[in-house]
């Protein structure tokens, strides 16, 4: 698989500020606008020129992973139309970026659209998960954030094993002023969300999520942070049902938090 460093030209100098398209993802757009606002604040603080192309909708991940990949072709076409011509497309979602980078080409092949495939191969490598963009393209780990709380981080599967973001999110969190970052036991194990898995295999999904929630509470963290709101909603929903008192936040929200503008 391609990495950011291999596939993109040298990053635009910070002073000039790269022109970044925010890919909101339909789920965040609808359910988690605060994550997106935080992403915008953060990127602009770091000198990026952020645009939100209003014609964007969805990457098609849900359809693809449920077995309706061919039905997702119009969404892929829309994606390459909307995000054509930007230096970078950034989304605060490992799984949606994973879908763009790993599945869009497959969908184009499946519907036999070679022109679409060419355009996917042009757009997909320029699409970044937030932590990848910050570390690889902007070259920063200290984003000037302030967050004086006890935090544990769960690396979501698609960030970890599809995008191979490695410890980029952790290196960003370690640089946050005031943070008490505690290691999550069994961190690399899936939380059990899995999109439609949570509906089709609810019992196993909940069993996995319950184990993850137990690991999180074992750290005595006040806040659990992830880079995917879908997984965060799943585990957060379990933590909330059990009145655990653990707050859930997206990575973007912690990185956006400053001494002047605290969360």
């Amino acid at each position, binding site marked *: 698989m391609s990495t950011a460093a291999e596939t993109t030209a040298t990053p635009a100098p910070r002073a000039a500020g790269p022109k970044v398209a925010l890919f*909101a993802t*339909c789920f*965040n*757009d*609808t*359910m*988690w*606008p605060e994550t*997106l*606002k935080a992403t915008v604040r953060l990127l602009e603080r770091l000198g990026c020129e952020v645009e*939100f192309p*209003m014609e*964007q*909708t*969805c990457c098609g991940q*849900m*359809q693809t*992973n*449920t*077995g*309706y*990949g*061919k*039905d*997702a072709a*119009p*969404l892929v076409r*829309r994606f390459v139309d909307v995000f054509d011509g930007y230096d970078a497309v950034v989304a605060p979602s490992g799984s949606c970026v994973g879908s763009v980078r790993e599945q869009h080409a*497959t969908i184009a092949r*499946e519907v036999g659209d070679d022109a679409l495939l060419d355009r996917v191969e042009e757009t997909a490598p320029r699409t970044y998960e937030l932590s990848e963009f910050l570390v690889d393209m902007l070259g920063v780990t200290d984003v000037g954030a302030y967050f004086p709380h006890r935090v544990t981080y769960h690396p979501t*599967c*698609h960030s*970890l*094993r*599809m995008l191979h973001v490695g410890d980029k999110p952790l290196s960003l969190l370690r640089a946050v002023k005031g943070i008490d970052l505690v290691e999550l036991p069994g961190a*690399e*194990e*899936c939380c059990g*969300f*899995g*999109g*439609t*898995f*949570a*509906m*089709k*295999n*609810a*019992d*196993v999904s*909940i*069993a*996995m999520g*319950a184990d993850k929630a137990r690991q999180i509470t074992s750290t005595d963290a006040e806040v659990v942070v992830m880079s995917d709101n879908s997984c965060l*909603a799943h585990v*957060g*929903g*379990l933590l*909330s*049902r059990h009145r655990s008192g653990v707050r859930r936040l997206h990575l973007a929200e912690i990185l956006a938090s400053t001494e002047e503008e605290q969360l």
Partner: protein
Amino acid sequence: MGMPAFPEAAEEALGKTQQRHNLHHATHTIRAKRAGVVGELDDWQALRTAGADAKDEALAHLADYLEQLEENLTANGATVHWARDAEEANRIVTALVKAKETDEVVKVKSMTTQEIELNEALREAGIDAWETDLAELIVQLGGDLPSHILVPAIHRNRSEIREIFLREMGQVGRAAPEDLTDDPARLAEAARLHLREKFLRAKVGISGANFAIADTGSLVVVESEGNGRMCLTLPETLISVVGIEKVLPSWDDLAPMLQLLPRSSTGERMNPYTSTWTGTHDGDGPQEVHVVLLDNGRTHVLGDSIGRQALRCIRCSACLNVCPVYERTGGHAYGSVYPGPIGAVLNPQLRGTASEVDKSLPYASTLCGACYEVCPVKINIPELLVKLRGAVADQERPSAESAAMAAAGWVLSDPRRLGAAQKAANSVGRLLGDRTIRTVPGMGAWTSARDVPTPPTESFRQWWARERGTQ
């Protein structure tokens, strides 16, 4: 049909406390051991590539390599049989055993013979097939089904095994000692004594093969306990049932494979025993050697250019041991001798997606990707799962799900429709304010254990339009 769909079987499995405990302990232990020995090799990724390449080469030219294998086996004194399906393979094996005028055989642990239900076929012909791998013995004596590729009795604990041995061994041979304890060493000793009399008198041994080498005609069996060596060496006649995908082009392909398999499987640098034989050997071992080459759906898998990568599988079970779903459900929920992630892609390809269990298997995964990461022959299991979901979805159309997907697609294909849908969600959010959603009609599965996020009163795109004024 028979087997229930995965979610129902899984629900039952989740309630088995002892099994959950055993599975957690076993999978986490092997996982850690594997990671340790894989970490010792700095060329692991190159080895994986070499392993995948060797299998791909064999599969790409399978007919040629099988003919070469047959030629070399025959030249070295073996007899080769071909079986289109399970029934034909069972018929061939049964006839061979009957010709030896015996009513029993000793067996090396073999996934392939389980797949074709050879023991049951032999039983019908009045022949006892004794499983000799310790775990297989536990499963057989317990009237049970295997639940893991490598450690089939993973769902049993020591006291259950003691009970099974005390109750059953005497029915079929040398009884377990009356003072048998649940100490694993004592249990293994009881198995040693019980099976030894069978090994020493058996006229026919039956095995599978981990690898069949085309350019030399050699078969390879990888094992731990020595029961394999007993079956491969002591009887006068040896019958090996080998899936056609077990072929490797060249002897040299063993170089990556004998590094990949033990490290991925048991987490050892090398398994205790590996046997290779090339037809018959004068004065050493069985003087009558048969090899049954089995299709049984494999050519169907081979016909799919993406799906065929599943035939690379070397049955190491590394994917089971890292799978968070398998860890919680165990193997029985997969309704096949091939459980776990590889089973979830292999069974629907071998058997088709008609049955309830086979059409549910592609969904028995969160697509977390842990299986792909550890697979020694780089089978992209998540990719195959998604592809198989497509096959199931197509077959089930029109369905409530396909209608829902079409509706979602219609909303998502246009930002204005998405915006309208968001406004509907916003009104729910405004209605609820800060209250937590604890149940949603029609979303019982979700809300049975989780609180649902309350929709915001304004979507991001509304905020952006309002704040930044672009529309």
